[in-house]
């Protein structure tokens, strides 16, 4: 309860500060709109459905691309961990491409797929895939050999060992790779949406971009707030519970 209260107070102070900066007219009201104007923009955007639609479009791109990245990344990571051939080839490729900021895929995606959903999905997959491959490989290679030996003596074999021993043992690494993949995918998708107009649907990034074009600062700030809230929610709803479970089971918390 006290923690909750301090959070409320903190954000209230932040809002008041904002209101004060607006009132003091240090900068033009075009550049620094009042909190109320931003709130009114958001209310309007919710009421006419633009916000909901843009959020849905963005989230659909993100979730599909992210899932493809994970579903592809984990098996590929297992391959690179298991066979030297894959480690030297695919593993090296993954390591190299992971260092490439995923926004750099946008020009290529546009030329290949045009201003379509496929281009956006491609960028999100590229943001996710390499991190997940590398994290899975690292996780598997960090599994203490004694787990495998213990499982072998109990009659566990090949696939059973992979699914019941190696994968769960590597889970903390895989989850951190998934989290990193999520961060990369989210950032690159936003950048891509701001950077190019995708004809098949307007996402949050596009709303942000239109806000700038119309010099509608309340829209720019409003959408930024929405993007931050989505990022927070993803962390609180999806990643935090998994991480809490892992810390609890493995005994690694604090």
């Amino acid at each position, binding site marked *: 309860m006290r923690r909750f209260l301090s959070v409320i107070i903190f954000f209230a102070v932040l809002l008041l500060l904002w209101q004060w900066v607006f009132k003091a007219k240090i900068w033009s009201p075009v550049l620094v709109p009042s909190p109320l104007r931003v709130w009114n923009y958001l209310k309007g955007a919710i009421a006419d459905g633009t916000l909901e639609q843009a959020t849905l479009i963005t989230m659909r791109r993100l979730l599909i691309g992210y899932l493809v990245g994970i579903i592809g990344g984990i098996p590929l990571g297992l391959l690179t961990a298991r066979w030297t051939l894959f480690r030297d080839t695919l593993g090296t490729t993954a390591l190299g491409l992971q260092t490439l900021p995923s926004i750099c895929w946008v020009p290529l995606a546009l030329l290949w797929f045009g201003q379509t959903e496929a281009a956006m999905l491609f960028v999100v997959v590229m943001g996710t895939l390499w991190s997940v491959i590398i994290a899975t490989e690292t996780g598997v290679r960090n599994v203490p050999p*004694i787990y495998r030996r*213990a*499982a072998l*003596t*109990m*009659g566990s074999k090949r696939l059973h060992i992979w699914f019941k021993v190696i994968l769960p*043992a590597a889970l903390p690494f895989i989850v951190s790779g998934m989290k990193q993949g999520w961060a990369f995918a989210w950032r690159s998708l936003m950048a891509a949406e701001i950077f190019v107009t995708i004809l098949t649907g307007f996402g949050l990034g596009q709303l942000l971009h239109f806000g700038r074009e119309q010099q509608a600062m309340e829209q720019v700030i409003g959408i930024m707030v929405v993007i931050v809230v989505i990022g927070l929610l993803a962390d609180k709803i999806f990643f935090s519970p998994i991480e809490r479970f892992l810390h609890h089971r*493995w005994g690694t918390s604090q």
Partner: protein
Amino acid sequence: MFRHKTGSLSEELQVVAPSKLAIENVSKSFHTTTGKVLALDRISLQVNEAEFVCIVGPSGCGKTTLLNIIAGLEKPDSGRVLADGKPIISPGRDRLVMFQESALFPWLNVLGNVLFGLKLKPQLTNKDRRDVARYYLELVDLTRFERANIHELSGGMKQRVALARALAPNPRVLLMDEPFAALDALTREQLYGDLQRIWKERKKTIVFVTHNVREAACLGDRVLLFSPNPGRIQEEFLVDLPRPRDINSVDLAGYSSKIMRSLKSFNAERAAAKP
């Protein structure tokens, strides 16, 4: 054919016949940075049904290697190991291993760990498996902790879970690789008692590797003293004392000092032989 599932539980909990092990001329060498090490040099050894054999020796004398070969986790360069006349070529759950570090799986709780080997027995129902697991948890006195996470347990409790996990699939042989080495003296003492009681109750053939001479004398029907590089059986001692044995008893001290003397004299000889 219709299977009577109700019968399988009591069947599963029956004491199985312990194995007889025959180690015949087993050699194994390793290449290390300092050169070739002959970890086992033509070792031959018989372990009788339900016998408790302790292998004691300094580190690097090949005792763990021998245990791994019996487990089927490693292959000998030459020679072979037979369990009840059949050669051992791979790991099998008739020979389960208890490792020095607990090797328990941190992603499973206590019950999940004990269930791991049981889940690989297709003839059991899930309820049977849980009942069997609980039976062994009771045997090691950990019933209250079946839902606990591994990291929440003390070192001694972890090794007791590991013992329950190794016993649960009802093996004929139990291979123990310095299982109590990392524990404090008091916990160890209690586990000596537990192990002897369980061994008597479940009738397993046990090969127990340790570097603790007194521990070997306390637990073994027979103590084999290994010497390192090349790894050989240097001497064999029969420990003819009633059970359960107390690690602190005076009679036991006699045996352990005898073994210790032999160990020291060998080391002295070897030091003298070196230029």
